[in-house]
């Protein structure tokens, strides 16, 4: 079957907004796979990004009420890298204390991101939580 997918151009951006529920993180994985493929990442990098973006979303939702607000995923292809951020706006108002299981899961998420992408981080500011990551093509983070 002929390959008809169009490549993304440098500095192209894609944005996805969905209710901040864990069961919808699959949408972030699907979009990230599609965008990464069009940005020229190989199959192993695609799998890494698919897993990593799920962890990114989980980290964003960490310690917040499931389903409160929208999660906004922003993907940007620039030169040989893809940058992805996941933002939950107005999260602080509904923030809850993380329990031991959540802390353990967050530690695992951080480990997975640390192994699969080149840079990543998480910040809370002005009532919003934002987690981000960046991965270069052809540069395995491990």
């Amino acid at each position: 079957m002929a390959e008809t997918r169009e490549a993304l151009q440098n500095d192209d951006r894609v944005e996805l907004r969905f209710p901040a529920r864990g069961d919808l993180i699959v949408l972030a994985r699907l979009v990230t796979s599609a965008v990464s493929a069009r940005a020229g990442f190989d199959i192993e990098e695609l799998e890494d990004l698919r897993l990593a973006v799920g962890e990114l979303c989980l980290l964003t939702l960490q310690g917040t009420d499931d389903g409160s607000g929208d999660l906004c995923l922003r993907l940007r292809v620039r030169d040989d890298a893809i940058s992805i951020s996941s933002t939950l706006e107005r999260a602080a108002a509904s923030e809850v204390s993380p329990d031991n299981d959540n802390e353990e899961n967050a530690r695992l998420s951080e480990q997975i991101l640390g192994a699969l992408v080149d840079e990543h981080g998480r910040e809370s500011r002005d009532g919003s939580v934002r987690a981000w990551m960046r991965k270069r093509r052809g540069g395995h983070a491990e």
Partner: protein
Amino acid sequence: MDQEFRIEERTDASPPVVAVSGEIDVATAPQLRECLHRVVAGSEASVVVDLLGVTFLDSTALGVLVGALKRCRELGGDLHLVVTDPRIMKIFEITGLTNVFTITDTVQAAGA
């Protein structure tokens, strides 16, 4: 298309086997947690979790498996995993969990 999430319990086996297929993520992990909680509670020793049919798992799934392992060990048993897919094994490797779980490539090798 991704394989549908399924859990099959083989509690007549010794040790009992929980075979999972499809994607284990934050949406499906609670079903696995509930199943493992029940099987571990009814088991006299070890439990085997067959992940041969799993196409994806995330940190939530790892958390469920680690929790079940702790409960097994509290009861004097162990939790054995069966994994062959390199993509799934990679997740255990990068989180250091290959040093925590006993991982084999067949259910028979896990003792079932």
